[in-house]
C-alpha cells in the first residue's frame, strides 16, 4: 500500500529532495503501523513528537495505516 507523508521542521531539512506540494509517497506492506513507516523513513521514533494522521493528532505509533493515508510527521517543538 501507499501512504502520503508530509515532513516538517528538521525532518524536512534532512530530506533535501522533499517536495512540499507532493510530500513523499511511501510504499509499505499491508497492515504496517506508524512505527513501521518511521523505520522506512529512517526517522528514529524517539525524535518524533507528534503525528497527524488524516487530520487527527496521534501520539500512538502502533496505529495501523491503510492505503491513501496522509501522515504528517513532526519532531519536538517549542518556543513562541
Amino acid at each position, binding site marked *: 500500500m501507499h501512504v502520503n507523508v508530509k515532513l*516538517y*521542521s*528538521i525532518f*524536512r*531539512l534532512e530530506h533535501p529532495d522533499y517536495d*512540499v506540494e507532493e510530500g513523499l509517497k511511501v510504499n509499505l506492506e499491508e497492515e504496517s503501523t506508524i512505527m513501521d513507516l518511521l523505520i522506512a523513513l529512517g526517522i528514529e521514533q524517539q*525524535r518524533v*513528537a*507528534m503525528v*497527524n494522521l488524516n*487530520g487527527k*493528532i496521534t*501520539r500512538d505509533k502502533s496505529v495501523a495505516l491503510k492505503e491513501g493515508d496522509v501522515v*504528517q510527521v*513532526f*519532531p*519536538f*517543538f*517549542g*518556543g*513562541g
Partner: protein
Amino acid sequence: MSKMIRVDMTKGTVHYEPLNQELEAFGGRGLIAKILNDEVDPGCNPLEAENKLIICTGLLAGTPAPTSGRISIGSKSPLTGTIKEANAGGMAGYMLSRLGVKAIIVEGKSTDDGWFILKVGKDGAVLLPAGEYVGMRNYDLTEKMRTDFGEKVGVLSIGGAGERGYWNSTIQITDTRGRPSRSAARGGLGAVMGSKGLKAVVLEESGPPEIPYHEKELFNTANKNYIAGIKAHPVSGEAMPALGTAVLINIVNALGALPTNNFSAGNFGDAEKISGENLAKIQGERGGKENQPCQPGCPISCSNIYHDENGRHLTSGFEYETIALNGSNCGINDLDTIAMIDRMCDDFGLDTMETGTTIAVCMEAGKAKFGDGKAALGLVEEMIEGTELGKIMGNGTVFAGTKLGVKRIPVVKGQSIAAYDPRALKGTGVTYATSPMGADHTAGNSILEQSVTPTQKEGQVQVSTNLQVGMATFDNLGMCIFSGFCTEDPANIGYLLEMMSGRYGGEWDPDRLFTLGIKTLGLEKSFNSKAGFTEKDDALPEFMYTEKLPPTDSVFDIGPEELSGAVPFKED
C-alpha cells in the same frame, strides 16, 4: 553590592544607589514586581508622574550563563491597567550588566514637554536634551546614536508610537548588529517611557563586569554542563537553531490552533506559504540568514535576518507570533507583506502582536478584507501617520474593536491573545486567563507540554500553573525561556542550581529556585488586586466559550471555579 540608577525626570536628576538585600534576592521580572509593589500606587494613572518605569537585568546577568543577557522592562501598563513586565534579548541587558548596573528606575515626568536621552557610561549616567532625536524612528535613531556615541553602543528607544502615547507602543532594543529589532513589546511600555519625556537610553561600551562569584569554579563547570544540555536538547539544539520560532506555523496549524481570520478558525489553508520552512527556503535564495544570536554568546541563536526580493535587509528577529498574527490571523499568505509590517512596527515602535490582532478586528469591522495585504499595510501606515482611525488602532485591539463595534475581540485584561487559539491549546488558555500580564505567550505556553492532549480539559490548570512558575523563575534569572527546555532533564536543573550556588553561595535546591517564580507571581497578583482586578477578570473572551473552533470544533470549557485554582499564590 549591585547598583541601581534612579532618574527623576521631574527634577532632571540622576543618581546611583545600592540595592538593599531584599532587592538583591530578585532579578528581572521579580525585581520589577518588588519595586512596583514598594514604590508605585497600583491605582495610579499609568501615563502620569506617579508611575515608574523600571529597566533591569536578571540574577545571572554579567556571567557567561547562556542567554543571561535578557533585559526586563516593567511598569503599570496603560494597555491593561495591570502590572507589566516585558523582556527582550538584544544588547541592552548584556551592556547594562557590564556597566555594573542592575536596574534603572525612571520616575516623575519632565516639565514643559522636554525630551531627554539618558546616557550611561563607565564614568556615570547623565540626562541630555534629546534635540534632533525627537520625532525620529528607531532605525534612523539608532544609526545616528552610533555616529554620535560610538559604534558599540547599546540602545533602548521609543519611536513615534511611544512619543504619541499609543497604548500599543514598544521600547525597541538594538541587536548584536545594532539594529532596533528586539522589543519589550507588550503592554504599551513605550508610552510610559514617552510620558516621562525619555526618548532613549544609550549604553556605552565598557570592559567585562566584575562579578563577585561565591565559587567561580563551581559556576564555570556547571555552566559548561548546562550549555551542553541546551545543545543536546532536540528543540534548543536542533529545531530552533535551524528554523527559529517560525517553525511553529505548520505545527500549530496541524494542532488546529493557528489563529486565522480573527480567531475564527484554527487552520489556515496557506500555512505552508508563511511557514518557517518556507521562510528558510526563501531566505536561503535571497541571502537572508537563519541561526542568528539576538544577544552575545547565545548557544541557541534562533533569530534571523530577512531580506526583501532584491536581496536587501528588510527586517530582523522575524518571529512566529508576528507571522501568525499578521499573517493567518489576517488571512494574509505573503511573507514579504508580513515582514514589511514587522519592519514598520519595529521602526515606529508598535508591538507586532497587538498590531496583528488590531488589523484583524478592523478587517472584521469591514475596514479591509481578510487576506488583503495591501490594505493591512495601509492600516499600519494610518497608525504611523496618526489619522483618526490610526490613532484609534494605536490604542490596541480592545480599544479599536470597541470603537468599531466588533463583538469578537480576542483579549484578556486588555492585552490581545497570542498566536495560539486557546480553544485548541487549553493549557495556554488557562495561562492567558490567569496570568497577571493578561494574554501572554511567554507566561506559560503549553505548546511545550507533551503529556496532555491540547484540547482536553483535565489537567490543564496544573500544567499552566507549573509552566507559569517556571517561566517567572527564568524571568528572574534573566535567561531566555528557550534555554529552559532542557530542564525537563533533572540533571540540567542540578547544573542550574550549582550555577546559583557558585554565583551567590548557599544551598540551592529546586524549591528555593522555583520560589523565585512563586513569589513573583504573588507580588504581581497583589499589585493587580490593589489596582482593582478580581477573579472575574481571569477569563477568556465570551465567544471562545461558545463558538466552536474548526477543525477541532473545540470550545474553551474551563470555568471560573477551575481557573481560580491556577497560580494560587499571594504575597503582601
